[in-house]
């Protein structure tokens, strides 16, 4: 159990110590030649060196030995405990000339024991340091995994993590997830010949097939065409076929039914069980982010498909609407010419049908305009001309334009003016469009003899009161608003249908609304136009009593003179 080196040129001492230690479990060597000391200390790698104080040049020898054998225990044989001060720091224990055999034995044994414990401790320490390093690698690899949705990067992080924690000689990764076709990634310490690569390819393919036993593998691989991506650390050296005698480990990279590839790793020195755990852990860890990346990719692809569809739809609507306008113009012109009487008189029932045709041309062109407006808004191509303006000009315009239509139906269209309302910053033409739509709807849905009211007032956002389904919309408002309300005494809308009234093409199931027609786009357009104004639109209603449609436009914060300057 202990290598003991005794340095002395006194024969009687050598004899004495030899008698004590020349037996098991000791391995005793005595050196009396000054020049042989260093060599012996290196060869025997002693656990304990005992120095005789009488030896020549002792101080120098001790210093030299200490520098090459730091962990060896140094014991000094003194005459009677006297020592030179500056040697003390190198010496672990002392013996005296007249010490009994037992005491000598016990002193040396203590030193041997200490040395052994120290060695154990340092070995444990090294293991700990190794584990810590490996843990660090695992940690940084897993944070890399968590931070990426790029499959190629993920696979490279995996190989990188294995390199750092296992320091392999070669990894062969068959990846099915980084490209449209399978790729064999070779990360090698040394250069690989073409023959060796062919052999590795074959081996990788066999390994892969072995994973699925008698089932069909998820991907076909054609060894001839298999793409190889090679990364070599030291291209000056070459691997030979001996590589296949190296220790190896193999693992699939998969999660549930998702198969991403497999990896085999080679190393000249054998892998430990810790290595195996580490290898499995990394191979398993990468599959979850690979799965996420796959899902992410699918989502992105679906998204871009949807975006393309949405764009196509807008373009389609726009093209179709334009194409519809030309024949519509021809029909309209013909009807106008016929009804002008320039082609001869038309009798009463003829002119009835003539005006029916004209009315429907009007309606059709209204629908086309709505469709175009909506596709323009959705494509972000709607032009707005914002100015500081008063809401009354809009209300008055719409009241004037529609009072005739209202009167024809026997309805009273009343606009109540509120004095001293502040200005709003808005596009008057768009607001006229919104209000015209609301009032036209009211006219459509209100039976003869009733009233339609247009009101306006100033309100703070928190004072606005809307039914439950519009709470979210109204909650977004902040500050002061001009609120315009169109109130009718018509058929009303059921509470569950209120929100849907603003959906595209969602004419509420109701025979009367079907009867009065329309594109069903007026309210969705109004909603979008108001959003462009940072405003909102909502309604409340009671079946068979009537509806109130509200819209709110923020009070202008830009002083009139500033707008003049900017224009």
């Amino acid at each position: 159990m202990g290598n003991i080196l005794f340095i002395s040129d006194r024969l009687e001492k050598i004899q004495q110590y030899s008698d004590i230690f020349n037996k098991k479990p000791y391995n005793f060597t005595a050196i009396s030649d000054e020049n042989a000391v260093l060599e012996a200390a290196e060869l025997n790698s002693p656990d304990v060196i005992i120095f005789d104080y009488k030896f020549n040049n002792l101080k120098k020898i001790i210093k030299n030995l200490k520098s090459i054998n730091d962990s060896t225990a140094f014991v000094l044989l003194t005459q009677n405990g006297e020592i030179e001060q500056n040697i003390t720091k190198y010496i672990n224990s002392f013996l005296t000339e007249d010490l009994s055999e037992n005491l000598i034995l016990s002193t040396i044994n203590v030193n041997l024991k200490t040395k052994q414990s120290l060695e154990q401790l340092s070995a444990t320490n090294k293991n700990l340091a190794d584990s810590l390093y490996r843990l660090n690698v695992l940690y940084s690899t897993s944070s890399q995994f968590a931070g990426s949705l790029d499959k190629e990067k993920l696979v490279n992080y995996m190989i990188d993590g294995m390199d750092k924690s296992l320091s392999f000689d070669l990894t062969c990764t068959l990846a099915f997830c980084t490209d449209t076709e399978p790729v064999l990634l070779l990360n090698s310490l040394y250069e690989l010949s073409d023959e060796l690569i062919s052999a590795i390819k074959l081996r990788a393919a066999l390994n892969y097939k072995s994973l699925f036993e008698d089932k069909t593998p998820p991907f076909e691989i054609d060894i001839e065409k298999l793409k190889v991506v090679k990364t070599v650390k030291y291209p000056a050296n070459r691997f030979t076929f001996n590589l296949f005698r190296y220790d190896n480990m193999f693992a699939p990279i998969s999660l549930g039914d998702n198969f991403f590839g497999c990896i085999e790793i080679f190393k000249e020195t054998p892998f430990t069980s810790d290595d195996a755990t580490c290898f499995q852990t990394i191979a398993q860890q990468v599959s979850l982010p690979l799965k996420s990346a796959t899902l992410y990719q699918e989502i992105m692809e679906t998204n871009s498909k949807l975006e393309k569809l949405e764009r196509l739809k807008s373009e389609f609507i726009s093209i179709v609407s334009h194409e519809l306008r030309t024949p519509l113009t021809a029909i309209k012109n013909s009807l106008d010419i016929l009804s002008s009487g320039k082609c001869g008189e038309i009798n009463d029932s003829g002119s009835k049908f003539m005006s029916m045709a004209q009315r429907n041309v009007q309606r059709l062109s209204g629908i086309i305009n709505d469709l175009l407006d909506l596709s323009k808004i959705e494509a972000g191509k709607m032009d707005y001309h914002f100015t500081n303006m008063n809401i009354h000009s809009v209300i008055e315009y719409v009241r004037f334009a529609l009072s005739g239509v209202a009167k024809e139906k026997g309805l009273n269209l009343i606009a109540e003016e509120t004095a001293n309302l502040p200005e709003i910053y808005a596009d008057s033409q768009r607001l006229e469009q919104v209000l015209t739509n609301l009032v036209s709807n009211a006219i459509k849905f209100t039976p003869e003899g009733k009233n339609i009211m247009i009101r306006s007032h100033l309100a703070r956002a928190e004072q606005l009161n809307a039914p439950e389904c519009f709470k979210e919309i109204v909650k977004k408002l902040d500050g002061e608003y001009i609120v315009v309300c169109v109130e009718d005494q018509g058929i009303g809308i059921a509470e569950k249908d209120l929100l849907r009234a603003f959906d595209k093409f969602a004419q509420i199931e109701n025979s009367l609304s079907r009867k009065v027609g329309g594109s069903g786009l007026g309210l969705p357009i109004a909603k979008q136009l108001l959003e462009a104004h940072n405003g909102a639109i909502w309604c409340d209603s009671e079946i068979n009593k009537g509806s109130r449609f509200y819209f709110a436009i923020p009070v202008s914060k830009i002083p009139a003179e500033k707008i003049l300057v900017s224009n």
Partner: protein
Amino acid sequence: MKKILIVDDEQDIVESLKFVLESADYICYCAYNGEDGLKLAKEIMPDLIILDVMMPKINGYKISRLLKYDNKYKNIPIFMITARSQEGDKLIGEETGANEYITKPFDLSEVVEKVKQYLEA
């Protein structure tokens, strides 16, 4: 009598414009594509041109520019017909040379009114 040139590949539109303008005592010349339209314009020196924007070969926009950059023709008023309402504003002004634009579907009586404004002032 004043001469008006109507250029549009849509014959039905040309027909109806011709009818109302002739009823309003104008002489109408018609062309059904850009090339013929440009040739006719140079031949007859019309007092006003009504041009469709979307036509095969030479579109209305090009014809308008060609005429407006020629001193001989630059004073002839040009009306553009478009199916794209959002294009309207861009069609008037120095760049295209058009004086007015008409969006499909238009009102024949309004077109006649506008023509009168240019030719009877």
